[in-house]
């Protein structure tokens, strides 16, 4: 019984080898030429929008960005309108979400907020609430958020709750020492914390 034998010439063998390396080179070139996404230094609207042109307001804006501290910011509002100050815009129904890798997210909301383009910060005013994914809830008359680095500051009176605890303080700072460090939640200027013992 005869058997079917298929044989390739050396040309075919080298052609297959060439095509394999060509494909590999193409993949390397695709990854190498991919545009690197640089973290922006501020939420895009802070530099892109001319506040003086917002007389009629910007309806339901939605932006997201990455801070220099490596955290993701997601901003949402009902409306952004111009104010008398050139570099400041008034934001109605503002909410900001901050996501750090492998850490509980932070959610900020208020009825009003002021965006200062020069100082690169967003100040939440009127019914300000700060919540974290791990059930910390903090209220303060005013909470300021830096848009270029991860920094949240609230000046007293601060009051907050978290599982089994209540806390009051004169000042709150949330920040990262460096990009890979844990998020630090610091209460200062007279701290009073109450822990309810489990019966």
């Amino acid at each position, binding site marked *: 019984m005869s058997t079917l034998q298929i044989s390739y010439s050396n040309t075919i063998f080298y052609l297959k080898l060439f095509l394999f390396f060509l494909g590999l080179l193409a993949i390397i070139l695709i990854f190498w030429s991919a545009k690197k996404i640089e973290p922006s230094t501020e939420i895009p609207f802070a530099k892109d929008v001319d506040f003086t042109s917002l007389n009629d307001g910007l309806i339901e804006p939605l932006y997201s960005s990455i801070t220099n501290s490596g955290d993701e910011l997601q901003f949402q509002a009902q409306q952004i309108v111009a104010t008398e100050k050139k570099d400041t815009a008034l934001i109605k129904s503002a909410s900001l979400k901050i996501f750090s890798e492998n*850490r*509980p997210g932070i959610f900020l909301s208020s009825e009003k907020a002021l965006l200062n383009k020069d100082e690169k910060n967003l100040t939440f005013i009127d019914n300000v609430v700060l919540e*974290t994914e*791990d059930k*910390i809830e903090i209220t303060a008359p005013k909470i300021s958020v830096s848009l270029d680095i991860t920094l949240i500051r609230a000046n007293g009176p601060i009051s907050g709750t*978290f*599982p*089994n605890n209540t*806390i009051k*303080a004169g000042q709150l700072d949330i920040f990262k020492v460096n990009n890979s460090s*844990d*998020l*630090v*939640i*610091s*209460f*200062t*200027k*007279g*701290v*009073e*914390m*109450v*822990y*309810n*013992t*489990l*019966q």
Partner: protein
Amino acid sequence: MAQSQNAGFGSLSIDRYEPLHFNSDSLIFNQAKNIAELFDGVQISQGKSILSAEYVKVIYSKTDNSLEKILAERNVELKSNTDIAKADKAVYSLIENSISLTGNAQLVQGSNKILADQILIDTKTGLTQLLGGVKTVILPSTN
């Protein structure tokens, strides 16, 4: 090892059901490690008992956020009614229902002191044990 037992330490056995009030100049939370650190002029009161120190670390359970342990360091003083204990370090375990004071530990009763390597208080019963190198210092009356 030398050992001595005293009657209940102040009102600790009753106070253990009361809420814990923490006061300090500053407090830092580390969510990842489930701890809170209190700095400068730290005072923790529970009923009529007060623990004061310069630094306190509070350790929470990772499962239900309940308070498991309080570690106090530097100029530690535990006061409950008229009983006072002083030491360099204290560990208040809410799981083991105990307070352990170590490092220059001393129990102060009026003008008298009892020195020991460790003062161990059972917060359920208030029973106080003085362990290791127990030495009583009785100051002579000035009258």
